[in-house]
């Protein structure tokens, strides 16, 4: 496939070029210092080799100016490395607005992935070229890590919280993805392939053999099955706040603080309902810890997300009034 002794993996994402450039910069700087020290030490070793058994070296005492020089100069160079690395990383940790969201669940020892329309995959991920992709990732058991070397990007998948990983694939092809956080017996085989496709082909692939329900509809069904709908009434007259428009908004809590209703907040409210009580409500909701799987939580979250466009009732809404939550 490639040369027999490759040095760089393929570059297939928006990050790849930046990471490689930064890598090369650090590599060249380090090579300069490594060669400098090696040449100096080798030169000294020959120039000042002992010529008679009783010989002693000169009375060298040190030189403060030199000490300051070789402290300050490397520090300056290190700061450049730090700053450049920070720029790349902050971009990597800040997903853009309009992303194609894919839910990822890691479990010993497989990956379950779900496209926005509900199409499921195991250890395979199909994505369209040049589209910002965001993986929203949870784990059912231990810590995993989703890693695509060709994208130069990875992120831990941690039980009990959601981590996101975004990238924009820039080259059509099939690339390895790995679990890179040790997770037990079959850690090494917990991987698969990311297929980057032409957007039109991706659309065709996505609608092909449809039949899976999309996550929001699955979530809506669960919402009824688990009887969430008996308290969380849409019109705000229930024992629990209406969830219309709550996703992404600010929620006023009983202790006076506000919190942003993101995936992590919704997950926590399902599993540990008493952790954050919405102002004006009693802590009556039972915990669903152990009753719902990670995937079901993702579906419920997708459903609540879909309620964003629903009319928010004047009274009984979870979402905080516009006056609070702003500075």
């Amino acid at each position, binding site marked *: 496939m*490639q040369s027999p002794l*490759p*040095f*760089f993996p393929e570059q297939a994402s928006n990050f790849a070029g930046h*990471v490689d450039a*930064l*890598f090369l910069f650090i*590599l060249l700087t*380090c090579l300069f210092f*490594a060669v400098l*020290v*090696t040449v100096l*030490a080798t030169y000294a*070793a020959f120039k*000042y*080799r*002992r*010529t*008679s058994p009783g*010989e*002693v*070296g000169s009375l*060298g*005492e*040190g*030189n403060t100016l*030199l000490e300051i020089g*070789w*402290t300050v100069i*490397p*520090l300056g160079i*290190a700061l450049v490395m*730090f700053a*450049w*690395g*920070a720029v790349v*990383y*902050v971009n990597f*940790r*800040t997903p853009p607005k309009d992303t194609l969201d894919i839910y990822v669940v890691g479990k010993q020892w497989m990956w379950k992935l779900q496209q926005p329309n509900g199409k499921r995959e195991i250890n395979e991920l199909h994505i369209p070229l040049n589209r910002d992709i965001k993986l929203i990732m949870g784990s059912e*058991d*231990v*810590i995993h*890590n989703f890693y695509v070397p060709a994208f*130069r990007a*990875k992120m*831990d998948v941690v*039980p*009990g*919280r959601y981590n996101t990983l975004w990238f924009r694939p820039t080259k059509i092809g099939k690339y390895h993805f790995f679990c*890179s*956080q*040790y997770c*037990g*017996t*079959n*850690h*090494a*085989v917990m991987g698969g392939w990311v297929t980057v496709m032409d957007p039109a082909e991706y659309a065709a692939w996505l609608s092909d053999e449809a039949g899976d329900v999309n996550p929001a509809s699955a979530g809506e069904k669960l919402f009824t099955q688990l009887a969430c709908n008996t308290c969380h009434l849409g019109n705000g007259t229930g024992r629990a706040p209406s969830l219309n428009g709550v996703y992404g908004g600010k929620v006023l809590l009983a202790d006076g603080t506000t919190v942003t209703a993101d995936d992590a907040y919704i997950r926590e409210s399902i599993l540990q309902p008493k952790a954050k009580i919405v102002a004006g409500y009693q802590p009556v909701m039972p915990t669903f810890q*152990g009753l719902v799987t990670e995937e079901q939580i993702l579906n419920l979250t997708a459903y609540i997300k879909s309620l964003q466009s629903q009319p928010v009732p004047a009274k009984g809404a979870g979402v905080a009034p516009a006056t609070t939550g702003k500075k």
Partner: protein
Amino acid sequence: MSTVSTTNTGPALKLPEKHYLNATYGIRSWLLTTDHKRIALLYLASVTFFFFIGGFFAMMIRLHLLTPSGYLLSADTYNRMFTMHGVAMIFFFLIPSIPAVLGNFLIPLMIGAKDLAFPKINLLSWYIYVVGGAFTLYSMVTGGLDTGWTFYTPLSTVYSNSAVAPAVVGVFITGFSSILTGLNFLVTVHTMRAPGMTWFRLPLFVWAHYATSVVMILGTPVIAITLGLAAMERLFGLGFFNPAMGGDPILFQHLFWFYSHPAVYIMILPSMGVISELIPTFARKKLFGYHFVAAASLAIAVIGFLVWTHHMFLTGQSTYAALAFSFLTFLVAIPSAVKVFNWTATLFGGSISFDTPMLYAFGFLGLFLIGGLTGLFLGCLGVDMHVHDTYFVVAHFHYIMVGGAVMGYLGGLHFWWPKITGRMYPEWLARIAALVLFVGFNLTFFPQFVIGYLGMPRRYHVYPPEFQVYNVMSTAGASILAIGYLLPMVYLTWAAFYGKVAGNNPWPATGLEWTTPSPPPTENFEVTPVVTWEAYDFHNRPDLGLDVPGHPEITPAHGHD
């Protein structure tokens, strides 16, 4: 010009009649000894034992990875091998190696004391180490351990089917041995220095151990607490880290690395201390920038406590935290760089010989340089997002811990072997072994940088075939490396009994430990020495019998240019 010639060319060299090795006989005299030199030898035997256990596991790992599908071991066995390799090497070899063997033996001798401040506590710390080691060995033979040496939760506390509890308890117990050793060193250096041995006349080996002791005392309790909590979660189901019980697995990582990153400095600082002895001795010249090197040790110890989350840049931790810790990580690199520059500068104007310890010092310099510089890649956020948890990391920390710490340890063992045993090792065989080690080491670990950047994750018992070429190189290197480790083990043991008698100061070197017989008497010095010279000052030491140009008599400190 000098009264006593102490070079080892004279035919009449004899071992002293009475010394610490033959002062008393019998197994009791060893197991109940409070002599720091004998305790050092007890440690030498125990850490060597764990080194070869860890080495055996390493060899299994490398043989297994010869082919992509791994023909030798099952997945579970492989996972146990790399875990137990890490646990044996880190907790039972690297952390105690230089401090508990060389530090124990040398610190009292170097500062002109009769023993450590608390000789009985010193013996106690060895027994604690042995008990901790026994628990860990028990874990190894009753199901092994497959959590990785990092014990990440909830894998270790809930999901692992291996003998986690005894191993965790073993490491927990061993920590106390480390704390006691650190405490003993600190008190000794503060209170027991001989007359004239001021703080800035201390050998840098002592400074490095001082800094190490601070880290041991402040850091080790944290790992003890952490492993204690993990053991309670595993044994009694208390939910500290398991999210299913409301715990936080990332909290474990914070606590774990709060100790385990400084622990890296427990491993490397003493080795730097050894190098700071070797280079001036074999260049016969004062160490360049003594004060800066001493301060660098302390700076590493202090800043080293503030970089721990650089192991966690990709756990989903706050971006701001990542920025702060990346910055501090670049900062901690600077004192190490300062040391490297000072060692190199020392060579200029020296009178350099290439005895085996110096070859190890050169080897250390090269390997530590690569290990240290590759740390910059990992500390850099924008590169870590790609190379984190790949073989790049494996290569990096082996360059530091094996290339740095073990090269320093072996260099130190060769350098002080004549003091410890009274006899010389075979010089040419030792030089060849040092060379074999250097070549084998680089062949083993350099290719791992490349497969790391190509994207091969750590801790894989099978791997995609495109990574095979580099794995074969690595395994070939490991075989050479194994020979490089077996050679010194064999000839140093031989030399302890049959080597040429060394005399008090065969090199000669300037430290106080070389003014007393080899092997030293039980009480170290017959009369308490009085120190009138700066560290590594060859020019004011007529007793060494060297040709100081134009100054046959003692010269004033600034009388030469």
